């Protein structure tokens, strides 16, 4: 979609009150712009931007066994990235199986000793990683172009028949119950434990799996969950498309499986019905780490754009969010305060707000987070905020996803793996451009429920709770019933 030239923000004009009270009109001369005659960016007449999402059909390979792959050539540098997305994750049964599979994928194929696998990757100067989440696995192998055939061979053998050892099966998932580190990551992990309980979408550590899995059970799960129908590949970089097609066919064309991946819907989640505060002591810590949030159900396509715009304005991980301005810019309370709507496809994700700061600032950080959440739920965002968010998402974030061949192959494959279609990317810019202030307000009221958010704080609780108020913030008890958890028995 092309935004009109000369009016890059879609022809909408912001109310005059949001502009600075002075606004120099630029008179461009051949000798350049004098120091003070700097126009406001909105007066610069910047051209519109065309962002074309590549045609998935032009990059797609479909095998007879149901496996799909996307190839995008890019010869900027002689590197190739091979990625396998598997539509199966830690939420799928049996509990712990996919986490065990992820560990197995890290060890390489069954017909190769782990040392030989890692040695082969080292010889190629490869970068290899395996990521696992509730609904998917991802194997990423980045190699010099000269090694693509060998790399594809290793990846295919690993994916189709990983080395599953007794250790992989029996390893305890996650840290010991009740233990935590002094970090935002662990505050989030504890939040997830409180939110999900024993729900299969919860953190692996919430479920005791030690000793309950056998290698054969993991093997069976592999056969059922990892098969041509549940895998989407991407091949991006310095490889000829015809060669890439041949590589995919040669290594995956004969792959058959009776099963078709995970079946059934996840069980419903019964999230906490009211707001609670969970405090975890870290007496020697210099800061407190805060996570506030609740579950996020799968987001309907018609709501996705408004939710994204809303979060961009509220806490979208950049320097100009409402949370950033309130906590960092104006008060110097924290280095970061951001919102993370992490929606999934089938089951419940999370929507959290995360921040951290010195003990004296923790209560005010909690207060300001809730205050901004309430504000966006009760007042329309400004036209300027809307314009900025739309431009950032449409002309920036979306454009980034197809910035080069590597990103294009990956983005197309990932979308196919999770959604089974490409409608979302096809309509993304249009949907973002259509979002109104009323839509943002509706999204905030639909997807933000501060009255039942869980508040997790790790930090020096005595100093946090006894600190005098910096402004008019409530004590932590003012947000709901407080539970002080025990300090970890041992640190990890």
């Amino acid at each position, binding site marked *: 979609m092309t935004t009109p030239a000369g009016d890059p923000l879609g022809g909408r004009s912001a109310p005059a009150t949001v502009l600075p009270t002075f606004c120099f009109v630029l008179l461009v001369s051949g000798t350049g712009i004098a120091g003070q005659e700097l126009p406001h960016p909105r007066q610069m007449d910047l051209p519109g931007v065309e962002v074309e999402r590549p045609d998935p059909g032009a990059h797609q390979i479909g095998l007879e066994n149901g496996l799909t792959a996307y190839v995008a050539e890019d010869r900027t540098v002689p590197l190739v990235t091979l990625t396998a997305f598997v539509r199966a994750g830690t939420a799928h049964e049996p509990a712990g199986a996919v*986490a065990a599979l992820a560990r197995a994928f890290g060890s390489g194929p069954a017909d190769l000793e782990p040392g030989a696998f890692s040695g082969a990757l080292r010889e190629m100067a490869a970068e290899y990683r395996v990521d696992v989440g509730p609904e998917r696995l991802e194997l990423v192998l980045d190699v010099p172009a000269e090694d693509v055939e060998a790399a594809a061979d290793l990846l295919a053998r690993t994916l189709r028949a990983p080395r599953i050892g007794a250790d992989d099966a029996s390893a305890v998932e996650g840290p010991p119950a009740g233990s935590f580190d002094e970090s935002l990551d662990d505050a989030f992990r504890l939040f997830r434990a409180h939110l999900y309980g024993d729900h299969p979408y919860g953190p692996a550590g919430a479920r005791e799996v030690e000793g309950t899995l056998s290698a054969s059970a993991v093997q069976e799960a592999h056969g059922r969950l990892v098969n041509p129908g549940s895998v989407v590949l991407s091949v991006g970089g310095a490889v000829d498309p015809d060669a890439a097609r041949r590589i995919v066919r040669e290594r995956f064309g004969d792959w058959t499986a009776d099963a078709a991946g995970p079946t059934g819907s996840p069980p419903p989640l019964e999230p906490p019905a009211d707001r609670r505060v969970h405090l975890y002591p870290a007496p020697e810590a210099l800061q407190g780490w805060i996570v506030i949030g609740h579950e996020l159900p799968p987001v309907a396509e018609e709501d996705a754009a408004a939710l994204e715009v809303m979060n961009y304005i509220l806490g979208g991980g950049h320097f100009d969010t409402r949370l950033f301005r309130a906590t960092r810019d104006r008060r110097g309370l924290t280095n970061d305060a951001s919102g993370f709507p992490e929606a999934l496809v089938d089951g419940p994700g999370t929507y959290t707000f995360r921040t951290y700061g010195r003990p004296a600032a923790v209560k005010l950080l909690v207060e300001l987070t809730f205050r901004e959440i309430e504000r966006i739920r009760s007042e329309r965002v400004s036209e300027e905020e809307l314009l900025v968010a739309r431009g950032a998402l449409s002309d920036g974030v979306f454009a980034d996803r197809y910035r080069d061949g590597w990103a294009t192959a990956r983005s197309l494959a990932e979308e196919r793996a999770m959604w089974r279609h490409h409608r979302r990317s096809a309509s993304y810019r249009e949907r973002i451009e259509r979002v109104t202030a009323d839509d943002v307000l509706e999204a905030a009221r639909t997807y933000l429920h501060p009255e039942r958010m869980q508040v997790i704080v790790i930090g020096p609780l005595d100093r946090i709770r006894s600190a005098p108020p910096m402004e008019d913030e409530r004590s932590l008890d003012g947000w709901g019933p407080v539970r002080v958890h025990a300090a970890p028995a041992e640190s990890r």
Partner: protein
Amino acid sequence: MPMTTFSLPMLRVVTASLFFVAVAPAITTAQTTDFDLPIREHVLDNGLRVLVLNRPGSERVACKIFTDFGAMVERPGQLGAAHFLEHLMFKGTRTLGTTDWAAERPLREALLETEADLIAARNGARNEIRVREVWHGDSLPSTPALDSIQGEIERLESRMARFRDNGAMMRWYQAFGGTNLTATTEQEYMKFDINLPADRVDLFLRVEADRMTNTVFREFDEERMILVEQRYGDLGSPATPYYEQMNAAVGLIHPVFWPEGYRTDFRNYTRDYLRALYDEWFVPNNTTLVFVGGVTLDEIVPRVERWFGHLERRPEPRRVEAVEPVPEAERRVIYRSDEMAPRVEARFLIPGVGHPDRPRVDVLGRVAGRLVQDALDRTGIAGRVNPNTRVVHTSRFGVPASLNVEVVLDDEADVGRTLPVLLRALETIGEGAGTRAHLARARKELRTEWYRTARDPDALAFEIGHFQTMDSWRTLEAYLEGRDATSLEDLRRLARTYLTPENRTVGIVRGTGEER
């Protein structure tokens, strides 16, 4: 949703940070199999340098503005000031970040006068506020008079707060499709970065010309507290004090080894000092613009002239005069920590970028890492070797820094026997250990890492600008080729030259209990 990652550890020298790259459709330029860097340069009459690496077909541009200025210019008591200045340079200018500059300006002038009173009062009270305690805390002594002046400063800032328009500099970048907005200050450079659609690069030129000349230091004390928070975050890693102690032992006097600042330094910052730094160093003849992506030099020069051409060349900023003295004796640091994994490491001073040995040291580090790992494995010591050239956060400098060979151990009981194994393995390099296979692998690793950098326009633009501040952008390609051309004889010579006892600093980390 959180993802758990299982990765194979890879020996890797830390180079530039990775940022997201610009958008581009699938492109089919000629495959690059060497280090060809078609960078084009133009220098304005006022000394501003423009470097462009065009990527035909790319619709976005990684834009960076580098200033040849960093923590090395700081003075003791004001460490971290360069980084703090970067923070302040996000607070806006006379045209962005304020709702009424005409009303704000006189308050700013009054503020600066009041701060001048504060500085004079501090100087006059030097014997009253001098820190004499060894085990001092973070706060600095004060007097009622100083507190009174500080209170007036805070009142003035509070009055100015109503004119602020927070986030204005970032907002309009983002509104017009900007991504990867960030900034970094290290020992030798400060840079501001943004990725923009190619047709909107003028926005970068407008904003950065403004930032370079019209920055207003808003929310000074609030931003000072952000440095405190960042410092707390650093101290949250148990390794931070250890690394600072190691750097202090490796380098006797050169500021490249100094830390990012202590909380006592943060309390010393004044607008006056920061302004002096800004006025001296942020001048066109000390600045480089770097563009990687869908623009050409011919397209960009007239636009740069339009926005920066009116700026006048200023006196050259002072150079950093410190020279690290020639080392005379080995140093050792014994660090006790129950939170860090036990470790043994050896650090060696190495030459800066621009010296012909420096690229070859990268290869030496890789080969050394492999040989040390093999030696540990043969001896039955469970540990992981991490060779790197990092000082604070950066891995390359235009001045001497260090090659670090770290061994992180599984068992503290191995600390005692690891050091001789480590040192002996390093000695063997000078004696001829190291095979063509080691060399080939090291070269391939470094070459592949370079390709990963070059794949990413942001990372590539960083390297170009960083080399300009360390030495010259023209030497980047030669640096890469120098690594590729390293021979076994080079390794032996480098080992005999640099991996010597008097050039060595040893670090040992063990727990607080009895030594086993």
